[in-house]
C-alpha cells in the first residue's frame, strides 16, 4: 500500500485516476481504516485528502455553508453558523459514533461510504445539500441523494472525489430536524433515520418541505409524497398522519437482528411525524 497526502485537488485527482481500481480516498478514516485493518480491502493507494487546501474549512457562500471534505463532525458541532442554519444536519452528524469518532468522521465520508444507515445523509438530503465533486473533467455539483447508488456503491466516476458539501441558505421561517431509532442511547447503527426540512409562509402554511429516510431501503430515500402531505397545510395532525403514512409506504427495508420489516416500516412513520414536529417548531422560531 502507498500513502499519499497531496496538497492540491489536481494532484489528488491525478493520483486517483492513475491508480483506478484499488485507490481509496482517506478522509476521517473511521470507515476506511476499519475495512483496511480487517482485510476487507487491500488498497494499492490511499489518498489522504485532508492536506488539500480548503478541505478543513467551513466557508459562508451565498448565505449557505460550504463544508470541506476534511471537516470532522465535532468541528461542525462547534460552528455556530452551521448550527444556526441547519441544526438537524449538525445533530445528525453529532450522532455518528462517539466523541472520538466525531473527532475524525466527515460528512463527505459518511456520504461516500454509502451505508444505507448513514446518519448525516437523510439530514443532508432534507436540507437540499449538494456535493461538489472534483474529477478529471473538472468539478460538478450533484444532489446528495444522487451520490449513493446502493450499499457501499456511489455514482462517483474513476478519479473523482467529493471536495465539499454545500448546505444552501435556509429560507425564512424554515426549520429542519433529524431523528434516528437505535435500541440504546449511543454508539449504535440506525434502525431507521429520518430527516425533515420545511418552510412556512407568514400565515404559518407550509410552502416547501423535504423528507428523507435512511436504513429502510438500499439507499437513502427522498420521499416526495411525504413532503407533499405537508405542503399547503398548517402541518396539523391530519397532515402529519398523511406524512407518517407516506413514509411507512415508501419503506422497503431488510429484516435483520436490528429490526424486522414491520418494525422499521412502522418506526419510519413515527419518526417522520416527530421530526416534522421539531422542524415545525424551529420554523416558527
Amino acid at each position, binding site marked *: 500500500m502507498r*500513502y499519499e497526502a497531496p496538497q492540491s485537488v489536481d494532484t489528488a485527482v491525478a493520483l486517483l485516476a492513475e491508480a483506478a481500481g484499488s485507490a481509496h480516498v*482517506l478522509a*476521517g478514516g473511521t470507515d476506511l481504516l*476499519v475495512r483496511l485493518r480487517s482485510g476487507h480491502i487491500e488498497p494499492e493507494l490511499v489518498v489522504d485528502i485532508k492536506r488539500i487546501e480548503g478541505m478543513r474549512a467551513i466557508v459562508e457562500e451565498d448565505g449557505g455553508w460550504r463544508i470541506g471534505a476534511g471537516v470532522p463532525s465535532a468541528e461542525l458541532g462547534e460552528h455556530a453558523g452551521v448550527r444556526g442554519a441547519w441544526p438537524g444536519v449538525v445533530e445528525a452528524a453529532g450522532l455518528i*459514533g*462517539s*466523541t472520538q469518532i466525531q473527532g*475524525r468522521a466527515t460528512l463527505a465520508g459518511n456520504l461516500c461510504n454509502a451505508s444505507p444507515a448513514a446518519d448525516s445523509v437523510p439530514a443532508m438530503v432534507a436540507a437540499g445539500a449538494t456535493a461538489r465533486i472534483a474529477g478529471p473533467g473538472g468539478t460538478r455539483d450533484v444532489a446528495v441523494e444522487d451520490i449513493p447508488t446502493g450499499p457501499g456503491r456511489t455514482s462517483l466516476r474513476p478519479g473523482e472525489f467529493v471536495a465539499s458539501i454545500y448546505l444552501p441558505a435556509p429560507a425564512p421561517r424554515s426549520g429542519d430536524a433529524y431523528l434516528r431509532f437505535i435500541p440504546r442511547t*449511543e454508539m449504535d447503527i440506525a434502525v431507521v433515520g429520518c430527516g425533515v426540512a420545511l418552510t412556512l409562509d407568514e400565515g404559518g402554511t407550509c410552502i416547501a418541505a423535504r423528507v428523507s429516510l435512511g436504513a429502510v431501503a438500499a439507499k437513502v430515500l427522498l420521499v416526495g409524497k411525504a413532503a407533499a402531505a405537508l405542503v399547503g397545510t398548517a402541518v396539523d395532525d391530519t397532515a402529519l398522519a398523511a406524512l407518517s403514512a407516506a413514509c411507512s409506504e415508501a419503506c422497503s427495508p431488510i429484516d435483520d437482528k436490528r429490526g424486522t420489516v414491520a418494525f422499521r416500516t412502522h418506526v419510519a412513520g413515527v419518526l417522520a411525524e416527530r421530526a416534522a414536529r421539531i422542524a415545525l417548531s424551529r420554523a416558527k422560531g
Partner: protein
Amino acid sequence: MSQIHVTTKINGDETEFLCEPEDTLLDVLRDRLGLTGAKEGCGTGDCGACSVTVDDRLVCSCLMLGAEAEGREIATIEGMADGEVLHPLQRKFIEHAALQCGICTPGILVAAKSLLENNPDPSEEEARYWLAGNLCRCTGYDKIIRAVMDAAAEMRGEIANDPDDSLRRAS
C-alpha cells in the same frame, strides 16, 4: 515497501519516526516509540482504549494512520502527569477506585481531560455522553463518573486541592 518518514510532536517533544503506510498511529506509539499507555482494545473504534488527542481533538489512534501524524501535535497518557505530580484526574481515579484491571484507564483519562478542557463544568449527563466511546468491563462506570466530576470540581477550585490528603483518604 518503503517506509514513511514522519516528523511530529508528541507530548510537546519533537519526534521523528519511520512507519509502514498501513501502520496505525496506535501501532507507531506502542511498537515503534515505546509509548504503551494507549491500549488496543478492539482496533475498530469501539472501545476508546487507544484514545489520544491530535491537535487537541480527541480521536481513536487505532483509526488513524501513523503517516497522518506528520506536522501534528499528539498528546498521550504519558504526557498527563507533570513528572511525579499526578494530574487531578489521575489522583481522583485513585481516590475513587475508578479502575480495576486498568486497561480502559489511559483512554478514559485522556478522554476525560479533553472533556474538561472543552467543558470545565460538565453535567453528569454530558460527562457520560462524552465518555460513551470508552468502554470499561470492570467498574460499571459509576466510580469513573464520580472521579471525573470530582476532578472537575477541584479543577474549578470548588474543593480543596491537597494531593497528599486525598491520597491518604483513598488508602
